[in-house]
């Protein structure tokens, strides 16, 4: 995974609450067996009409929201299905960072495991960012845990130190866990056997 340290770039705005993973990546695209190539299907039913043409009224199709690496969204982003195809498609489309007032648990986890950074800010700060997005460059500094814009906003965000370290280093979680194999072996020795399957 590629490490995240400092990210400078444009933000796109999706001012909707409770965006669910069924919308982020509709189920008809879940049948692939690869991890890549989901970006073209991101928000498919919102982005395209029946003939496959871009819908002009959908936020991400508007010029000011194109080529952004940061997505600013409404509360409870990523609720619903646990499909990891949701972060895969966001990332493949170009979003490495999502800022929202709140995230659904599983979605947030899935982002972190794929080297994406979900940032929770207060509702007020998120609406400020939404209103000022278009012409702004945002700087996200994971080391300092700050979001800075070029109008004078500088705010900090929380992230669990465990995830911070993972993201900063681009580490693969499984290789870290495998270092704990002795502890897992020990645990399994003491476990009461469950009926075999």
């Amino acid at each position, binding site marked *: 995974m590629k490490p995240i340290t400092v990210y400078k770039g444009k933000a796109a705005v999706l001012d909707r609450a409770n965006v669910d993973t069924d919308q982020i990546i509709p189920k008809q695209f879940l049948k692939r067996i690869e991890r890549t190539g989901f970006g073209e299907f991101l928000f498919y039913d919102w982005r395209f009409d029946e003939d496959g043409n871009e819908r002009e009224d959908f936020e991400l199709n508007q010029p000011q929201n194109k080529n952004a690496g940061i997505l600013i969204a409404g509360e409870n982003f990523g609720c*619903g299905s646990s499909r990891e195809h949701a972060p895969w498609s966001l990332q493949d489309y170009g979003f490495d960072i999502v800022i929202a007032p709140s995230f659904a648990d599983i979605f947030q986890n*899935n982002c972190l495991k794929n080297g994406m950074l979900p940032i929770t800010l207060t509702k007020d700060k998120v609406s400020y960012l939404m209103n000022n997005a278009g012409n702004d460059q945002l700087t996200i500094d994971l080391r300092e845990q700050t979001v800075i814009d070029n109008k004078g906003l500088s705010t900090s965000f929380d992230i669990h130190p465990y995830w911070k370290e993972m993201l900063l280093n681009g580490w693969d979680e499984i290789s870290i866990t*495998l270092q704990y194999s002795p502890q897992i072996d020990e645990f399994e020795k003491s476990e009461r056997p469950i*009926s075999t399957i």
Partner: protein
Amino acid sequence: MKKSIIEKVWDRHVVYQEENKPDLLYIDLHYIHEVTSPQAFEGLREKGRKVRRPEKTFATMDHNVPTVNRYQITDEIARKQLTALEKNCTEFSIPLADLDSPEQGIVHVIGPELGLTKPGMTIVCGDSHTSTHGAFGTIAFGIGTSEVEHVFATQTLWQTKPKTLKLEINGELGSGVTAKDVILYVISKYGINFGTGHIIEYCGNVIRNMSMEERMTVCNMSIEGGARAGLVSPDETTFSYLKGRKHVSTGVDFEKDTKEWSALASDEGAVYDTEIVIDGSEISPMVSWGTNPGMASPIDGNVPKAGNDEAGEKSLQRALDYMGLTAGMSISDIPVQHVFIGSCTNSRIEDLRQAAEFVKGNRVIDGVRALVVPGSQSVKKQAEEEGLDKIFTEAGFEWRESGCSMCLGMNPDVVPAGEHCASTSNRNFEGRQGTGARTHLVSPAMAAAAAIHGRFVDIRKAGGSTETAELAF
């Protein structure tokens, strides 16, 4: 110290603990299916890793299997996924209930049915409705594909201990009010993220009086309230459900297990981070009218006239536009063109019996297409032995093979754009049952009644079959 079941089960599974780190939690049982596992197996292969405990892993095919002519999978990519699962299970020695198996079915239906799910376990699956298994007093939650791979390789997950939420439902439920209505009511009242960051323990005498299947329906939709998981402390109802099932111990071992399981129940006076108390008698049969499970009203209620605030107003308007409904209209005026009885929420034998009771002697009204999709092959068999399939087919329902089907419309069972579906599933998101499809979440009895009337009716007034006939319009 007095402990809740959530803490007891959690603490028993901590492999490693360190400050500023999530806990390394041991996973007792890992269910997998064709949609969220292929990339995880691929990841193992790329790194030359193995499945640490294949015997603690169980696979089934459910999400995109056809429910008619199940061996003719016309969708090339769906077939690729099913073949990949078969190949992966063989390669990594994982037991699989494939399409030929009498044990095949929706993962959250067959796990309990086979007695794989047992009190005190930690259970995960790459599917958010894994919370269903919480009905047995387990910590069971949905995970993403990277976590599936992590469990394959290590049989553990790094997890931050969630907060605990006690949801107590007291009093008596009125007639016609089911487990589905209870959970829809809770979510409509407290919102789709009231449980975020929490594990819910459902308790109170309404829950105590429920059968295991009803408890599963409630726990199933915990995620719809944003919770990581939901569970019920095990009791006699739990033990008698488990007794005699394939993967459950027998004789003295069972006695021993029962003792241990009983000790898991929450201690009197255990402290929770959040507590909610509900009076069960307030609950009516519910119908969702919007595009998330919190947007639901009692059958004798209305679609709301206005949102609480500006944001609420905006999302209400968007939902109504999508659903083709007008603010303030009566729930009973919503037309229904499709009925789906199935999904891991409501496709067990009791659900089918409940629906059949309303269907018996009636006919699906012209213009309605109605489907019954049993949750598993074993539910299907049982229903056929009881003659339920005849009741359904004689009334004009289609009787299908088991699978997820129209719950998410990955197989050919979809609702056409703009049409309304009374569905016993758990999600009414835009496009969930097909592009442009309009889903209304209801109980099996309410769905059956909607099939007969072509709109939603109050089953408390319509009663069972004979009275329903009188009520026909």
